[in-house]
């Protein structure tokens, strides 16, 4: 059933990762992503990869789901690996035929890049697995709120994101309904070439746009009725509080950063 769709890929749970403050989670995730790109040796990258695995275990999200998030990047992984093997030259030659040479440095770089991408995806998908989209937009609003100084309407942006998320399932249902209505009138949506199919979508998107505008209009009315006047003077029911575990998470992150820098210094750089 189309009604049953869940926005994002939140995996409900009660693990430590789930209960961390979303602001801290957001910052820590970006921090770790930066640290991934600071890694130069296999040892420092290994430390990050280990952190990613440990965090995944801590989140209690099934390994199957985490592997599923890696599926879309398999092609990218293979592609970058091949490019690195053939284009990075240096060190001992393992294999040579015609113009192709596979060298030690090429293989190392390929493996290094692959581990780097996988850690990146695992860490960032852990954020979306353990945080609801609403919590994420909320956290983003609060983190970016200092930008108010530059007259950037952070609250309005966050409200737009929340409303967009809220209306995704509604509009999907609407598309389904319009498609059925057009099919009932004899519209052919499944056959024909690319151009014909694109043309067949016009009678679906026009009603969708019209209804989306009508919905927006009514929603604006409803929001006015509920005394919405923008971000000024608004309070929030759900407060975000930094707990001890959040501080530990930040300290842990700092320790990993330090570890990466030290390991970079003592071991040979791969890249």
């Amino acid at each position, binding site marked *: 059933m189309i009604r049953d769709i869940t926005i994002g890929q939140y995996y409900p749970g009660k693990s430590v990762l789930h209960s961390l403050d979303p602001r801290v989670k957001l910052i820590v995730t970006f921090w770790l992503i930066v640290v991934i790109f600071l890694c130069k040796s296999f040892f420092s990258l290994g430390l990050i990869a280990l952190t990613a695995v440990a965090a995944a275990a801590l989140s209690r999200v099934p390994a199957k789901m985490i592997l599923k998030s890696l599926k879309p990047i398999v092609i990218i992984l293979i592609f970058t690996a091949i490019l690195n093997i053939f284009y990075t030259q240096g060190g001992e030659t393992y294999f040579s035929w015609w113009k192709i040479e596979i060298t030690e440095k090429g293989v190392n770089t390929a493996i290094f890049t692959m581990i780097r991408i996988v850690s990146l995806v695992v860490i960032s998908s852990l954020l979306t697995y353990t945080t609801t989209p*609403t919590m994420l937009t909320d956290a983003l609003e609060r983190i970016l709120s200092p930008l108010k100084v530059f007259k950037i309407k952070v609250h309005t942006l966050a409200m737009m994101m929340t409303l967009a998320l809220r209306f995704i399932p509604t509009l999907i249902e609407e598309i389904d309904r319009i498609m059925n209505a057009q099919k009932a009138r004899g519209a052919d949506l499944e056959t024909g070439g690319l151009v014909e199919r694109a043309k067949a979508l016009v009678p679906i998107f026009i009603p969708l746009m019209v209804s989306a505008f009508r919905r927006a209009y009514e*929603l604006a009315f409803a929001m*006015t*009725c509920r005394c919405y006047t923008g971000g000024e003077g608004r*309070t929030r029911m759900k407060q975000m509080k930094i707990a001890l575990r959040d501080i530990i998470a930040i300290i842990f992150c700092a320790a990993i950063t330090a570890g990466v820098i030290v390991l970079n210094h003592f071991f040979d750089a791969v890249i």
Partner: protein
Amino acid sequence: MSEKIIEFENVTFAYETEEEDAPVQFPALTDVSLTINKGEFVAVLGHNGSGKSTLAKLCNAILEPTKGKVTVKGIVPDTEEKADEVRRIVGMVFQNPDNQIVATIVEDDVAFGPENLGIEPAQIRKRVDDALKSVNMYEFRHREPHKLSGGQKQRVAIAGVIAMQTECIVLDEPTAMLDPKGREEVMQTVKRLNKEMGITVVLVTHFMDEAVQADRVVVVDGGRIVMNGKPREIFSNVEKLRSFGLDVPQSTELCHVLGIKEGVLDVDECVDEIARLAGGAL
């Protein structure tokens, strides 16, 4: 007389559209005067295009009268600030539940109104929980609105107004898009708000069986108030109602056609009357 909460004084409202550079006015309401008292349950009846929705929107300053004056507890909403004040007194529920739910989680949506009013977080929590309990949706507080039925969504929308603690709720055809079960759920909730919580209710509807449950029925036709009285008085006048393009509840009609009694309001009463006619118990 009890305390007035909403007062219409000779209100005229016309929608304006631009046609060939000359503004054309479509009158939706003409010279309407109406008083809604505190604690009342008033049903506004009318067929499509009678102006009943316009009447509802004038109650909380969504629309401004072209002529005349709408007063809510002594406030005339002629500025944005005063309109906001009026909206703290009169809440509104619309027809389509999908287009009035703002958040992706039920309890966050109910909290939206109180958050806009700038209420303390702990206080909002309490209001939200109480509001959800009063519409029997407390168990659903962590659910996503799009996974609820129409009747449940509409009850969430009502809870959103209750949490704002308005003195009056205007419902603009809240059951028009619902199935019979959803309609029943919403009507039960509305009646409870009025009877148990003492909230003034203005219910705009075109369902006769809903209007019957009100304390007072106002019939609108062609932008004017044509009837205003107790349900029993209104529904005694079957022919007049018909002339406004309105039907009467089935039990009322049966008793009218049989010539037993005018102004019968529900099935039980109808059964009693027929039993009496038959001269025995049924």
